[in-house]
Structure formats: C-alpha cells, structure tokens
C-alpha cells in the first residue's frame, strides 16, 4: 500500500509525523534556549494533531481525549513551565556553543536510517496505515537520546528527555491506536512531576556550581581543589 492509495486524511497523518521528525532535528541544532522551547512546544502540538487525525481517520473516540491531554500538557503547560524557569534562571539570552553541529545532525540522520532498518521487519507484519510512523517515532526517541548526550546545558537536556517522551507517545498512537486511559493519565502525571523535579533540580545545580553546564559537574571533585 503506497501513499497515493491512502485517503487524504491519512496522508496528513504521515505529513505531520514527518514534521515531528523535522522538529526533532530543529531541537537538536537550536542553540537558543527559548527558541528550543518553542520548537518543543510545536512538536507537542504536532503530536496532538497526529493523535487527533488518527482519531478522526480511524474513528477511535478515546483518542480525542488523549489529543486534548497532549495538547494541554506538551504544547502548553510544560513549555510554559520551562519558559518560566528559564526566565527565573535569567537564561533568556543564553546561547550554547555546540561543538560539532554538522556532525551531530549527520549522526541524527544515521539514527533515522538505523531506526528504519530496525523497524522494517515489524512493519511488514502490520496492516494499518500508521505502521510507517513507527520508524519515525523510534527515530524521535533516539534523537532525544542523542540530544541528552550532545548537549551540555541542563535545560536543553531536559528538552531532549521530554522529546524522547514525545517519540514514545507517537509510537503508542501509531502502533496500537493509543494506550488505555489509565496508563496515559499515569504517564502524563509522571511527566508533569518529572518537570517539577527538574525545576527544583536546576536551582540546586545552579546554587552548587553557579552554572547549568553539566560538564562542570565532572570537574567539581574535592581532590582538584586541594592540589593547587
């Protein structure tokens, strides 16, 4: 079944999934924190749109609620909390210098190819139109992981972590037409609690090392201070 035989609505789902992947790349290479938070919010909104379109196309009514929950949580509440945190930490104008931006994006491209290769045998079994999205969601998860590795700034790492969660949610929607409501609510509250904890943690890190650059945590050993 190729793209041209799908109804228009299902083509839109694939388009939105591709845009989610693009936003992952945008998140990975964005050096300004506020712009990265906006990219994350757009990704959340797109995931909500994917869920909504799948719900309409597949007549899955319980997905309407998930779409609403995703929109409220990932596109509004969490970006707003991050925004407020960044303002309180006075990091609005902070720009991070990435060490090898082109190399990191090419690594992300390699991750996309890898996840496609991994997913091909699974995809061949399934018959729903969303099956192709599984590779995209795995790629979003892996790119989030790459962001955790490549970035030094704590807020950017949290964004990577949250976008990993976005990828997992996309996988759940595309592979199984959504999780049970109880699980979904549980995950949503987990994410929210994690966000609050991260907020507290940011202030702790900043108080102890005067910066949010987590690489400096490695240098802060007792022996180093005593040797000079």
């Amino acid at each position: 079944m190729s793209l041209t035989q799908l109804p228009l609505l299902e083509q839109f789902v694939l388009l939105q999934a591709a845009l989610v992947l693009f936003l992952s790349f945008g998140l990975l290479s964005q050096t300004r924190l506020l712009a990265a938070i906006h990219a994350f919010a757009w990704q959340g909104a797109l995931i909500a749109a994917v869920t909504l379109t799948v719900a309409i196309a597949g007549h899955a009514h319980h997905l309407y609620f998930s779409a609403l929950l995703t929109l409220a949580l990932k596109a509004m509440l969490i970006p707003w909390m991050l925004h407020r945190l960044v303002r309180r930490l006075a990091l609005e104008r902070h720009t991070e210098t990435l060490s090898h931006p082109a190399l990191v994006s090419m690594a992300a491209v390699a991750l996309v190819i890898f996840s496609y290769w991994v997913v091909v045998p699974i995809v061949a079994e399934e018959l729903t139109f969303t099956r192709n999205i599984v590779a995209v969601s795995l790629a979003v998860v892996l790119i989030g992981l790459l962001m955790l590795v490549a970035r030094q700034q704590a807020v950017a790492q949290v964004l990577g972590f949250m976008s990993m969660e976005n990828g997992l949610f996309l996988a759940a929607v595309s592979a199984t037409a959504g999780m049970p409501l109880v699980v979904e609510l549980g995950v949503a509250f987990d994410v929210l609690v994690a966000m609050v904890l991260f907020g507290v943690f940011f202030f702790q890190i900043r108080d102890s090392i005067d910066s949010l650059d987590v690489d400096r945590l490695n240098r802060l050993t007792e022996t180093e201070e005593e040797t000079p």
Partner: protein
Amino acid sequence: MLSAWGMALLQALLYPALAPLLIGWVRKVKARLNNRRGASVLQPYRDLRKLLAKETRVAHTASPLFRLAPYVVFVATWLAAATVPLVARDLPTAQIADIIVLVGLLGLARFFLALAGMDVGTAFGGMGASREMMVSSLAEPAMLVAVFTLAMSAHSTSLSSVIGYHLADGFVVRPSYLFAFGALVLVALAESGRIPVDNPTTHLELTMIHEGMLLEYTGRHLALMELAAYLKLMLYGVLIANVFVPWGIGQAFAPAALALGLGAILLKLAVLGAALAVGETVVAKMRLFRAPAFLNLALLLALLGLLSHVILEVGA
C-alpha cells in the same frame, strides 16, 4: 499546431524575454514595500539596452578567457533554462537533458564566472569568486539530493516526467515533496544571490559575492552577465513553480493549452516574485560565515525528504 522542436525553441526564447520582467517585478514590489514608488517594471530591459549600446572596455591584464566567459556563462545558463518546461510539459529538450544535466550546466556557468572573477587579478574579483565557490559547493549537494527525492517518486530524472507523474497523481500530500520544496527554495535563494546569502543591490565590498566577480565587466559583456543572472533566478522560479504546483501547464501543443500554460506560469511567477520580495524585506542579510549553517539546513531538509520518501511513502 506547432511541432515539438518549434515549441522548444519558442520556449527557450521566452526565457530571456521574460527574465528581466521578473526582476523588474521583484524590484517594484520590494520598492512598494519600502514605501518607495520604485522604477518601472520595464527598467531592467532599459538597463540591458543601455549596456548593449555602450562601448565594451577590457582591462589590459585580462586574458582571452575574460572575453570568452560572458558568452559561456550566458549560453550555459540559457541551455539549462531551455530544459525546464515553462509553458508546455512534453518538450524534446527536457527529454534529451534531465535534471542532472541541468545541475551540470549551471555548474559550468558558475565555473567560468568564478574563473572570470579571478582573471583580471583584482582583490574583489578573487574574493567574490572564492565566496561563490564556497556557497555553491555547499548548495549543490543539497540541490542534488532534493532532485533525487523528486526523481525517486517519479522513477525518472527527466523534468517532464516528474511533472507528468505529479499531474497524473492528482492532489497527494507528500512529506518528501514538502521537504524537497524547502530545500530547493533555500538553494535557489543561495544560488541566485538573493538576500539571506547575498545582497543583489549593493556594491559593498565586505558582503558582495556575485557583484564582486562582475566589477571589471562593461558594455555587452556586463549585459550578458546580468541577463544570465536574471535567467538563473527565473530558472529556479520556474523549476519550483512547475514541479511543486504543476497545475495549468500545457499538456499538448494546441494554442488553447499553450495560452493557459503561459497564463498559469506568469501567475505563479508573479506570486513567487512577490513572496521573494516580501521575504527579502522581512529578513536581514546574514553574515557570510553563517551561510554554511543556512545551506546545511537545506541539505538536512533534502535528506529528510529522501528519508521520509523511503520510510513513509513506499509501501513495505
């Protein structure tokens, strides 16, 4: 009813006839957006006539290559333009030369342009040539990957079959086309020297790329170089308009279909030109050292187009 080759010839002549009009239109819209009245849309024609009438002087350090380059640049760009379907789709020129030949012809023109820039030995010419090569060496891979994305959907690298395939499919939302569109727009901006990469209106030595290579040219040589630059902008505009929004292009060589095709392409180019003018008014020119990041984005978009074609669009 025209013969196919007659149509191809007529279309090839339409390109240089319309290209100055497109430039004039972009300049006019830009002037109106800046609250100026602006010159008439026919001003580029007058400029070209003036340059053609003027005496042609050549620096005494110039080699024969310097005299030869404007002709090579113009003819290569013109040939490249002749392979892009403008009014009618099924052209013999589009069948003997596919998109890869088009990229190659543009590369040939750029090669001679850069050589001519370095030939006289002035500092600005060499600087412009080096910058042009930097931009184009980054833009060309992005252009090729974007073109391959289109070719993979249509299973052909010929432009007329790509357009024909797209027309036969009707309205299909393709993620790969969206990404290829983004990549081609960025490449077109960089290659035709428009604002985020190069500013076509100034001769400020710190920033100029294309103008730097033309500083030593006068008279008809300059006219040919300018016309080639106009042609290049129009070529990219037509390429983007007819590949991504092919509706309206003439399917047969009948007068009614051709008139419709001409009207459609004029409308599309007017919209694209206005969009370019708005974009150039809103966006500031970026530093030269940020151009690689800009073109990396184009390459990334093109690669994502290729990947999303393979992952999302091909049935397993």
